């Protein structure tokens, strides 16, 4: 890992870990106030939703960098080596194009969200979309860098993860 890579990883961890902890306390606070105090907190649902966006998208960028997302390499693995390299290259190019496009759209959405505050806490929606902008920007750049670094060496077998049902 380069130093920049380490720094990005550290920032991602800090953001997503803080968001997840806050999410847990927010949901918990929602239950507890309902039984303990007379006035249940109304903001907890909204805040936990916003935090969840950050957890998911920052986490997704992190997972993409470490190649943890589920993919089906069954068909690609059946191809002869040269065709496989070509198909993998195509897949990566398409992925990068998609990621850049989504980054741009997320940015547009963020600009629009500035004038729309959330109902209870009055947090502008651009703060929500900021998570997607950062996430997809990072995914675009890291995928692009990897394309140059590895020159299309095919990754083998479906990656292991502990996330699906």
């Amino acid at each position, binding site marked *: 890992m380069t130093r920049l890579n380490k720094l990005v990883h550290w920032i991602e*961890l800090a953001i*997503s*870990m803080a968001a*997840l*902890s806050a*999410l*847990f306390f927010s*949901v*918990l606070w*929602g*239950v507890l106030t309902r039984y303990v105090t007379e006035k249940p907190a109304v903001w907890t*649902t909204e805040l*936990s*939703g*916003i935090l*969840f*966006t950050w*957890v*998911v*998208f*920052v*986490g*997704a960028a*992190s*997972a*993409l960098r470490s190649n*943890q*997302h*589920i*993919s*089906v390499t*069954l*068909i*690609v693995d059946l191809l002869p080596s040269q065709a496989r390299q070509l*198909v*993998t290259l*195509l*897949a990566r190019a*398409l*992925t990068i194009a*998609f*990621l850049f*496009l*989504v980054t741009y*759209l*997320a940015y*547009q*959405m963020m600009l*629009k969200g500035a004038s729309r505050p959330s109902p209870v806490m009055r947090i502008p929606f651009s703060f*929500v*979309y900021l998570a*997607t902008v950062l996430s997809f920007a990072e995914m675009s750049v890291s995928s692009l860098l990897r394309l140059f670094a590895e020159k299309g060496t095919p990754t083998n*077998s*479906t990656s*292991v*993860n*502990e*996330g*699906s*049902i």
Partner: protein
Amino acid sequence: MDLLPVIVLLAAIAIGIPVGLAIGMAGLSFFLVSGAMPAEIFIQRMVAVTHSFPLLAIPLFVMTGVIMNKSGITSRMMAFAEALTGHWRGGLAQVNVLLSTLLGGVAGSANADAAMQSKILVPEMSRRGYDVALSSAITASSSIISVIIPPGIGLILYGFMGDVSVGKLFLAGIIPGILLCIAMMITVAVLARKTNMKPAFDKPTSWPVRWQAFKGAFLALLIPVGIVAGIRFGFFTPTEAGAMAVLFSIVIGLLLRELKLKHIRPILEQTIQATAIVMLVICMANAFGFYMTWERIPAEIAKAMLALSENPIVLLILINLLLILVGMFIEGTAALILLTPILVPVVTEVGIDPVHFGIVVVLNLTIAGVTPPLGTLMFTTCAITGVSIPAFIKAALPFYIVLFGMLLLLTFVPEFSLFLPDLTFS
């Protein structure tokens, strides 16, 4: 009907693009080509999912499972399971099945269960002379139980997508989960006799020792009871139950003096990773769902299916076959999200209870996780234990028969699923 997004979806998955991104590409292609809506709506749909309160249950139940592994709850559950079945032939194999069932009541992810048992239990089984392929097959197959026993991520997703009460689904999963456990323990017993597996202990554990093991696991065993009872009596929603489960597993870990400050980082890290992987697929599928609703695809498919047959039994057979087929090519979570909104209206139309149907769908798509070609549970287990896929499949054959047998049983005897929800909700 514009089929471009469907073609993009299948092609992108086939060339090895991560499933979540592939679904996203397909969804985005609709916005770009049709011009029905500005393309930013894609982002809005994608993000909207993370603001749904029911789905917040996912990170919380994932976190509960991770905390249990770090806080010594898992090892105490294992000791308890071993004290009960250790003296049987194939004792550790029975422990493997029983542990999935016990842990299933607290954590909700089969993949996490399979990974944990592959790391902890399979090496121990190998040390005592069990065939490693068989141990892997038992581990992967029994992890299916933890999906059906509440709380389960699959049930939460089905409830969310199909607009079905998650509380009812949780109750519905209890009896099928226990039946699955019994069926698998019988299978293991038969295999143990045939292959002359060794027991873990020479003689039955004495009752005082069992009592000791029970006390060790007692507090943790209260968590599932608390979750189900709390939801049933309206004390909290499934999501809030998730937060309570996290809180209690932390408290138990502290009481057992095993949970330390140094565990905070790995707990959060593992939870974030597992959550993000599932949620990216869900977010993208929601954006893709916009295309399906716009083109009225669920309604069209429902009409086509009902034209085929209005007999509930025939429909259930057809749907099960369809799910098995889809499960071969699309990963379980993704298939669940894409198909639930299509299938639920069809089955309710012919009078099938959507709660019962939920158990069928989730079980069916989870079984696809242990069978080729796209068995994520199989891949997880084999990657950790180092067993080759063909060896795994050969060892898993008896379990395939049992799983499909149970699928048939649970499909055609709705009472197993509906007994508890009907008993308590009516």
